[in-house]
Each structure stands twice: as C-alpha cells, then as structure tokens.
C-alpha cells in the first residue's frame, strides 16, 4: 500500500468524543489508515535473533503467527507477573475512576475510547483476568475477562503502538499506575511472536550491527562530522578538532546518532562541538558507542540491555574517567533508571567531577554518566563561559519538556537555566502543559515513522495547541527541547499545526550565544542564516 494521506488540520481538529453504543469488548479493532506502522522485515528480526522473522502485513488477515503463539503469550504473561511486582499490581488495582482518561494526548487527539489509558490497560487486564484470576476463570465476561484470540493480538498491537510510553496519565492516577510499564510489557509480549514494526526493528538491527540506529559506519560518522566542523569554521573562523575513539581521554561523549545526520539535530551537535572546544575539554566521541538512544527499549528489556551494553564497554576500552550524555529523551530513561543495574556497576570509572568548575555530580555517582544540561548549567552558574544572548534576539523561545527527562528523571530547571542565560525572550507554556504535566510530542517510543502520520499529528495536537497559545500571546517562533526524537518529530508537528514556529536543541541556542576565544564577528547563526542586524554592520565594516 502507498503511504496514506493525512487530512488537513481543519479536518483533523474535529474530534468525535461521543460514547460508542456498546461495550468496548464487543467492538472489534479497526485498522484506520495513518494510524499504524508497517510490519518489520524478516532481516531486521534475524539480525538480533528475534522470533518469527517473516514477511507480514498488519492490514492483511493472516499475520503468520507461530502455531504455539497462544501458549507463548500466556507463558509470557505468567513470567512477567512473577518477575515484575509492578505489573502484577497494575493488573489488579485499577478502580476505573477515569482520572487518566482525558490526560492522554492520543485520546484527546483521536477521541478513540481505547486510547484512554484505563482502557488501553484493560486490553491486557481482560486476558490476565481470564487466565490468571479465579473470578475471571469462573465468571468470564461478567468479571471483565475474555478469551485470548488473534483479534486480541491485533487490538493490542494497534493500541500499544498508539501509546508513546510518556507517563502523563500516571501523574494523575491516584494509585500511581504506570501505563508506560503496561505498554512496555504489552510490546514485549508481542515481540515474543514476531509482531514488531519495521520502524523500530530497523534501528534495533542497525544499532546491533553498526553501533547506531541510522547504521552510520565509522567513516560516515567522521565524514559527517567534518561537514559540521567546516560550517563552524565558516561561522566562527575557528576550526574545532574533535577526536574519535581516543584512548586516555578524560570523558567519553555519547549522543543520539540523529544529531550527526538530520537537521535540526546537526545544529545541536555543532553546539556540543563549539562548547567543548571553547572549554578545551579532554573528551572523545566513539564510533562504537555511537548511539545514545535505544530503540531496543521499545521492543523488550533484554534487547534494550544488549544495545545499552556498549556504552560502558567503550568507556572501559578507552580508559575514560566518566561519561557525558547529549540531549535525548528515552536515552535518559534508560541511562537513569536501568543502565546501572543492567550493565553496571561501572566501578572502573570515577565519580564525575567537572574539570572546569570542580563540581561533583553527586546524582551521577553510581552511573558515572552526566546529562549535558547539568554539565552546561553548572558552567554558566560558575561564570565559566562568556555569553551574548542578544545574538538570539530574533527568537522568541518556549521550552518543551521531553516526557522522559521530565517525568523520568525530574529534570526541569537545568535546561531552563541554560535557555534563560542564552536568550532574552523566553516564554513558558502553561503549568498544566509543561514540567511533569508536559504533553508528549506524539511520536516518541518508536512511533516517529511516516506511514502513521495521522495519529502522530492527532497525538501531537495538545502539544501543538500549547505552543500555539504562547505563539499567539508572545510571538513565540522557536520551540526548544533536549531530545533528538523531539527535534525530528516536533518539526513535522509544527509544520502541520503551527507552521511559523521552528524547532531547536538547547545547545544550538547556547552555541549561538557562546562567545568563543579568537572568533570572528558572528554574522550567521548555526544554520548559516544571516543574524538579523549583524549582517549589514558586517558589510559596512567590509568584514566578509
């Protein structure tokens, strides 16, 4: 099939929140165009030894499931109930209060009741009840239980890949039920029978084979970097000299590979390069640990652990003291909450201390990996870098809290502190739509494909709506963030809903304002666009 066309915004905004005439359990799943991703190709699954590698199409009746698929799923649920106490509790304790229902961006944008977090969880709870609880076994449908059929698998697949694991609903749940964990387990179960999306399985295979999601080979990474270095020289007159795989460097730097490939991520990467050069930081990039993100996290815990392994392994091989991680969302959920116990303890590393300020990063004492926003905010706080925020005066900036850094690690102040020091015009979105209540970009957790664009634009509608409010009130024209998926997906979202708002990483703004030692007068920003007001002046001086 060809890629489905996305309706125009004025059509999409007409969401039907009506109540269906019958119980959800009697409404069969309907695969709507633009709401789902293509199935994985067999070679992606084969690359990492995932089961049931075959050609299949989600919109065809026969999903070519293995003969014993039902046993596999039930055994999979049993193992996870025993392994994860959280999952077992989440299966039991929901009282259907409905506090989560209208908090999900996919429900707000689609009006589909099965996108209410309570009902998304019910898709799996109903099976749990049928096979694992006495009440469900005896009373069946009256106890909210149902048989596990292929239709159920298809319904799971359709709705667990319409959840971005953003955890906004869990902020409002009086019981603290974490819907992201339910979705994660739902996806794990689906992986046991080979029903994976190509958009997730492709990057996983690439990351396993070549070190990063895009499949950038070592010479491609260094070549891409050279082009960024050329641009920095054109803008500042300074040639930065980043190193790759350098043994004995003090710090290993790891960031999502998207920052070394796609705009506007490349401008954020230029920001890192310029900052580290100005500091004279003793650091290295790696072609092996060349991916901070982890699409394995969207398939199963085991896969995420396998892909995460290389970060500590490379730190050990190179003999660095500690690690800095770039701007990324789900990468930090993995690093902050899983890496240490999966692949640590990294006791061969030292507790991170900024070589510039002497600050000890107590919070990273165990993982030995520091978020770049913490590192940079600390530099500014100690007055270690010179900044000229007026270079960003043509920008009215707002900040999008990424779900994973906000709700996953409570990082609210550091990016704001950086942005407030590098721009003069900063406007917050409302409290209900930012910080721990931030709205998802609508495309995280591996949903940032092209063929599911309609549900992406629906799911991103609440975020875009919040941006639109600050645009209309304050003339906001730039949406800053600290996530590589955001940089890619919010660009598409803004183009669709609020076309006059651009998207950038925090370190792009920082590097625009960064006064570098020995630099020439800046007449261009990091995008090689003329800086308003500066160009004319430069021409007058003949400073070309």
């Amino acid at each position: 099939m060809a890629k489905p066309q996305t309706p125009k915004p004025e059509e999409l905004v007409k969401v039907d929140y009506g109540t269906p005439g019958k119980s959800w359990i009697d409404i069969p799943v309907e695969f709507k165009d633009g709401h789902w991703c293509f199935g994985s190709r067999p070679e992606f699954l084969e690359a990492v030894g995932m089961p049931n590698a075959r050609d299949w199409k989600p919109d065809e009746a026969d999903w070519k499931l293995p003969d014993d698929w039902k046993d596999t799923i039930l055994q999979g649920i049993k193992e996870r109930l025993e392994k994860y106490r959280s999952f077992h509790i989440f299966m039991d304790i929901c009282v259907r209060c409905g506090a989560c229902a209208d908090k999900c961006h996919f429900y707000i944008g689609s009006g589909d009741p099965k996108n209410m977090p309570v009902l998304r969880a019910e898709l799996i709870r109903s099976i749990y009840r049928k096979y694992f609880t006495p009440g469900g076994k005896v009373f069946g449908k009256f106890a909210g239980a149902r048989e596990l059929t292929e239709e159920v698998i298809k319904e799971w697949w359709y709705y667990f890949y319409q959840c971005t694991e953003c955890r906004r609903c869990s902020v409002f749940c009086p019981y603290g039920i974490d819907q992201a964990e339910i979705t994660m387990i739902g996806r794990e179960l689906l992986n046991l029978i080979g029903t994976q999306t190509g958009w997730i399985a492709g990057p996983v295979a690439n990351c396993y084979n070549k070190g990063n999601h895009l499949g950038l080979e070592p010479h491609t990474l260094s070549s891409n970097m050279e082009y960024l270095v050329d641009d920095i020289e054109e803008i500042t007159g300074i040639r930065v000299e980043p190193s790759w795989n350098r043994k004995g460097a003090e710090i290993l730097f790891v960031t999502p590979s998207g920052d070394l490939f796609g705009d506007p991520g490349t401008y954020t990467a230029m920001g890192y390069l310029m900052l580290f050069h100005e500091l004279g930081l003793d650091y290295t990039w790696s072609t092996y640990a060349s991916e901070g993100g982890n699409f394995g996290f969207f398939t199963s815990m085991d896969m995420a652990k396998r892909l995460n392994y290389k970060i500590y392994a490379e730190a050990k091989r190179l003999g660095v003291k500690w690690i800095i991680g770039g701007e990324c969302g789900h990468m930090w959920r993995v690093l902050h909450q899983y890496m240490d116990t999966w692949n640590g303890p990294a006791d061969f590393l030292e507790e991170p201390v900024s070589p510039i300020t002497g600050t000890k990063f107590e919070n990273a004492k165990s993982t030995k990996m520091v978020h770049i926003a913490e590192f940079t905010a600390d530099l500014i706080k100690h007055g270690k870098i010179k900044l000229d925020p007026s270079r960003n005066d043509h920008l009215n900036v707002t900040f999008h809290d990424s779900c994973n850094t906000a709700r996953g690690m409570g990082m609210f102040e550091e990016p704001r502190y950086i942005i407030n020091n590098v721009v003069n015009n900063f406007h917050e979105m409302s409290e209900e739509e930012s910080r721990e209540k931030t709205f998802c970009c609508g495309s995280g957790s591996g949903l940032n494909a092209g063929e599911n664009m309609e549900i992406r634009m629906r799911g991103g509608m609440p975020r875009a709506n919040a941006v639109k409010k600050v645009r209309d009130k304050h003339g906001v024209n730039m949406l800053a963030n600290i996530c590589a998926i955001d940089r890619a997906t919010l660009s598409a979202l803004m183009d669709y809903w609020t076309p006059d708002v651009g998207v950038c990483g925090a370190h792009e703004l920082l590097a625009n304002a960064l006064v570098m030692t020995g630099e020439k007068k800046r007449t261009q920003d990091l995008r090689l666009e003329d800086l308003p007001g500066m160009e004319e002046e430069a021409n007058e001086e003949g400073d070309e």
Partner: protein
Amino acid sequence: MPTIEHDGKAYEVDEEGYLLDWQEWIQPLAGIMAAQDSLELTESHWEVITFLREYFEKYQIAPMIKILTKEIAKTHGKEKGNTKYLYELYPAGPAKQACRYAGLPKPTGCV
C-alpha cells in the same frame, strides 16, 4: 512485497516503493518510479541521482542534506546547492523522493 517490472524482471520494493536491494538497481527503474509520480527526469534530476548512488556506495547511507547541497554546489554550480532548488526538482523532498529513484533505502531512527 510489491514489485516493479522491467524487461521481464520483477524488482521487489517495500510498502512505500523503496527498492529492497539497492544493488539490484538499474537506471530505467528511476524513470519508471518517476513516471508513477508523473515526473519526467531531466539532466538535473540525474545529477542528483548519480551523486546519491556514488555517495551510497562509499558510505552505505544516503547523505545528510548538508552534504547533498554542498557537494551538488561543488560539482554542478553554486545555484544548485540549496534545498529550494532540490525541492523544485523533487517536490516530495530530496531525501525521500530522490533516494527512492536512486534505489536507496530510507533512513530510520531519530530522524
């Protein structure tokens, strides 16, 4: 998988029409794909396709836009080294449409 037929041979493509095996690509396929989009390939289109093929053989991925514009500017003139020009040639986007005609796979990940 769907296919594109040429000269008695069937070439497998994915759901969006990208060739599954970039090494199977032959020039006439680009013309067939373009015709499906009601586009006629000119010498200017071929400058981009040829560059993409050569780049891919060396780097195993499509070039980032920054590289595409800079290299096209170097070899074919400064007036061609910008995204506006490339979008005029390939209205659905140089990264997607031109790569598809050149038989290259679509990049995936945080892009």
